């Protein structure tokens, strides 16, 4: 066996290799939550296949006393529960790390590596002795390895028990069996291994005021609180759970107490074309309405997005990005719909994009998305991704201000129309390119004819070249106005920064960590996290201040960089791409390596 493992208290990665459809998800969640409740910052990434049952799946838990949320590139302890992937799982363990496997069957030939520690536990045997029905055997094997890990990692058994008690409060029949399975594993480990391992958990106080939540649920909460009342969608991974969450929230918090009826309307459309059509019908009518989708759905929505841009309909669209192109890898993450979203549809179109970095921002930016869509009367697309949307992230608890009232933007309702002389839907009264709108049925004076063909300020049909040009120029003017409404980017400055880094969305965690490491190596860098497109002055200022800017993004073609080249004063020489696009979330080490390589290449060239 191998070198001595250094102590990694509250700073290590456990990866669990399972088979999907075997109930490992709840065991792994239990593990993560235990660490969280012990006050230690933790995140988890789930790597699952595009099928329902029987294929390999991994769950990667990162324990980080410093609160780093991204993947680090290392694996300190591998829980290898899937014989099919033994070889790869073994190879992935960082030197000096551990591999826990089920020793019920001999696996020696497969498990050859000298520089790591192997921990065999006869899980299947143990569990089969304890339980007789096949389903229990499968399920409790998972819980049993949680028990093993609790001893190895020094988890607090009381916390595990507490979580189990809460989980099975209503299914007491299962409760006892779960406790038992934990004990089974724990006892075995205590007896056979030197516990705890050098990699272990020590209670801290760093998770108070935090929650562990996924981005789709957070976005759904945002929709609920922003007052969205109509949602239309067509199921597609990884956006599906957003509407699922919205639905269950509505069923809980939006039932009329008197009548028992729904104060919401969710429509499962026949496809994405219908979903966005419904959403637009609803926003035309005056409701806050949204549609969640993913890549292929976005591609299908192109025609309607152009209509919404041209007729100036508010719209909130969530694109929970997955690995493209085409069907691609539906259960893997990427940031590769940026260009498709920004310029969706034929003709001169351009769209507002928001880039949440994690579930917390999914919540807040969702609320903002509704306000912006109404205020700007144009589609607002929230570009989340599978990593944010479906993984569990540790975030500060969301706060709500009960004084919040939706900003519905420039709307004339009954009273205003009553006293108005006349109403012209597309007249630029205020000179900012944004006009007044009305809701159908509110008032006779508010009626207008919405059409995707050429229209005048009065919403009349036109093919006149000047009237058409006026309209297009106003829309361009409006685009300038839009910039001033965009959520500001987040700047992280460092002393004597040698270059700038620019990124968006879920890349944030990896970038932040990478920049800490680079600073330690004597290479401090400023970092701007862009939160919206179009880019505003702060983005320009950052570009102006940095001769070299690394643009970190999770796609092959450098799509964020393309947007910068198109829509800011950035120059090609200034921008250096740091790309990651294999479908897994960005890890900090990949950012570090790429920046180092680029720096030395530049250095050599200079």
């Amino acid at each position, binding site marked *: 066996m191998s070198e001595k493992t250094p102590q990694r208290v509250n700073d290590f990665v456990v990866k669990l290799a399972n088979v999907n459809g075997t109930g490992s998800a709840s065991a792994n969640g239990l593990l993560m939550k235990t660490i*969280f*409740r012990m006050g230690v910052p933790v995140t988890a990434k789930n790597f699952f296949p595009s099928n329902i049952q029987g294929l390999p799946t991994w769950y990667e838990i990162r324990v980080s006393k410093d609160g780093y949320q991204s993947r680090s590139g290392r694996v300190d302890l591998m829980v290898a529960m899937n014989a099919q992937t033994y070889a790869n799982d073994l190879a992935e363990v960082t030197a000096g790390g551990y591999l826990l496997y089920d020793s019920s069957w001999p696996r020696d030939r497969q498990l050859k590596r000298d520089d790591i520690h192997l921990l065999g536990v006869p899980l299947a045997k143990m569990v089969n002795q304890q339980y007789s029905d096949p389903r229990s055997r499968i399920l409790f094997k998972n819980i049993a390895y949680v028990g093993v890990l609790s001893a190895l990692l020094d988890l607090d058994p009381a916390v595990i028990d507490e979580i189990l008690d809460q989980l099975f409060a209503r299914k007491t029949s299962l409760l006892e069996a779960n406790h038992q399975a934990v004990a089974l594993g724990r006892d075995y480990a205590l007896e056979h291994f030197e516990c705890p391992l050098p990699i272990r958990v020590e209670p801290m106080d760093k998770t108070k005021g*935090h*929650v*562990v939540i996924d981005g789709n649920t957070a976005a759904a*909460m945002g929709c*609920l*609180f922003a*007052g969205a*009342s*109509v949602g*239309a969608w067509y199921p597609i991974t990884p956006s599906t759970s957003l509407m699922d969450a919205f639905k269950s929230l509505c069923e809980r*918090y*939006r039932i*009329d107490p008197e*009548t*028992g*009826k*729904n*104060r*919401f*309307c969710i*429509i499962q459309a*026949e496809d994405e*074309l*219908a*979903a966005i*059509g*419904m959403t*637009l*019908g*609803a*926003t*035309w*009518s*005056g*409701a806050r*309405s949204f549609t969640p989708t993913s890549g292929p759905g976005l591609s299908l929505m192109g*025609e*309607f997005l152009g*209509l919404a841009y041209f007729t100036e309909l508010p719209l909130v669209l969530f694109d929970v990005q997955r690995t493209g192109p085409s069907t691609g890898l539906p259960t893997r993450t990427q940031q590769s719909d940026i260009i498709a979203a920004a310029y969706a549809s034929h003709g001169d179109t351009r769209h507002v994009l928001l880039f949440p970095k994690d579930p917390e921002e999914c919540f807040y930016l969702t609320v903002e998305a509704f306000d912006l869509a109404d205020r700007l009367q144009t589609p607002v697309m929230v570009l989340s991704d599978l990593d944010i949307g479906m993984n569990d992230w540790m975030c500060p*608890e*969301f706060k*709500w*201000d*009960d004084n919040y009232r*939706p900003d519905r933007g420039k709307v004339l309702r009954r009273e205003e129309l009553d006293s108005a002389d006349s109403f012209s839907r597309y007249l630029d009264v205020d000179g900012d390119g944004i006009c007044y709108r009305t*809701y*159908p*049925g509110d*008032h*006779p004076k*508010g*009626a*207008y*004819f*919405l*059409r*995707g*063909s050429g229209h005048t300020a009065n919403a009349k049909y036109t093919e006149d070249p000047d009237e058409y040009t006026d309209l297009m120029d106003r829309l361009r003017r409006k685009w300038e106005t839009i910039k001033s409404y965009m959520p500001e980017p987040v700047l992280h400055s460092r002393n004597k920064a040698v270059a700038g880094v620019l990124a968006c969305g879920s890349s944030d965690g990896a970038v932040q960590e990478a920049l800490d490491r680079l600073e330690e190596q004597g290479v401090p860098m400023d970092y701007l996290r862009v939160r919206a497109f179009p880019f505003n002055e702060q983005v320009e200022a950052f570009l102006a201040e940095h001769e070299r800017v690394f643009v970190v993004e999770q796609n092959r073609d450098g799509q964020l960089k393309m947007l910068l080249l198109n829509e800011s004063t950035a120059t090609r020489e200034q921008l250096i791409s740091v790309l990651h696009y294999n479908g897994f979330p960005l890890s900090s080490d990949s950012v570090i390596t790429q920046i180092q390589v680029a720096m030395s290449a530049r250095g050599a060239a200079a």
Partner: protein
Amino acid sequence: MSFISKPKVGHPALQRNELGLWQRDYEGTISTLCAGCGHDSISAALIQTFFELSIEPYRVAKTSGIGCSSKTPAYFLSQSHAFNSVHGRMPSVTMGANAANSSMIFVGISGDGDSLSIGMGQFCHAIRRNLNMAYIIENNGVYGLTKGQFSASADIGSTAKKGEVNNQKPIDAALTAINQGAGYVARGFSGDKEQLVPLLKGALRHKGMALVDIISPCVTFNDHEGSTKSYAHTREHYHQLEQTDFVPPAEEITVSSEGRELTPVRLHDGSHILLRNVEKDYDPRDQAGAFAYLKNCQLRGEIPTGLLFIDENSIDFHERNNTIETPLIDLDHEDICPGADVLAEMLGRYR
């Protein structure tokens, strides 16, 4: 259309309706369709329908797709709200608008191309949802606006203007709707306003999906000999199943001397459609019977018109979905935002 403005559509209508409005208050802008286009007669019928039903124009939401037919919303009720969307997607837009504000009166106008080609999926699914709307197909067997290609409703053997023969089976909008279980399925002819207006009234009053498939000849591309959607052909093969009359809620139904052939069909708001059978034994309440009858007509090349099918007990989308009566857009923010305390409670589950 011609530049010299035509006389406004409809009768001089010297009467006001219950709201005190004139028929001309229900008119639209001047049509830019070809002189003689069937679609313009449908606009006229719609004007009369809304006028006679005394509906407030601003309570009406007109939706459409793309095509000559889909321009129709511009030509009636200019004081109503309209959403002229993209090709084939009127149903989804209407669904969303209805979800947000179920108190409006929805009338969707589409063409055979718009609904039966590109829009076939949305058409079927709007029926499936039993969306509460009057769904009007101005059916001319061609794509008018793109200059005369066969549409999916063109009959086998029907010829195009330049002689090409259609060799594909038609999609029958009414049969599709009946098969899918629409609660109100009617067929009319743009050339027969007398029959059309009561059918339209019924469609507006029916709660749930009400399809009115209207043969509406395209004088420019499909009114020649050899076309089965021409005025001449339609008139010749026109087969009225019933005489139709619409009776508003308040009025009593007077069963005339020929009472025994008279079927009153009650609609959700208490109004009635009175059917006086022309085709003996045709029962518009019998789904399978209607299907068989209409298939037979198809084989014989007959064009049955009237109320083809009705299910008086159909349950509309919102009823099925348990949506609150109050239009969603009228709910206050407090009614739908749970507030800070609930958020804190909600987050408890994620700790």
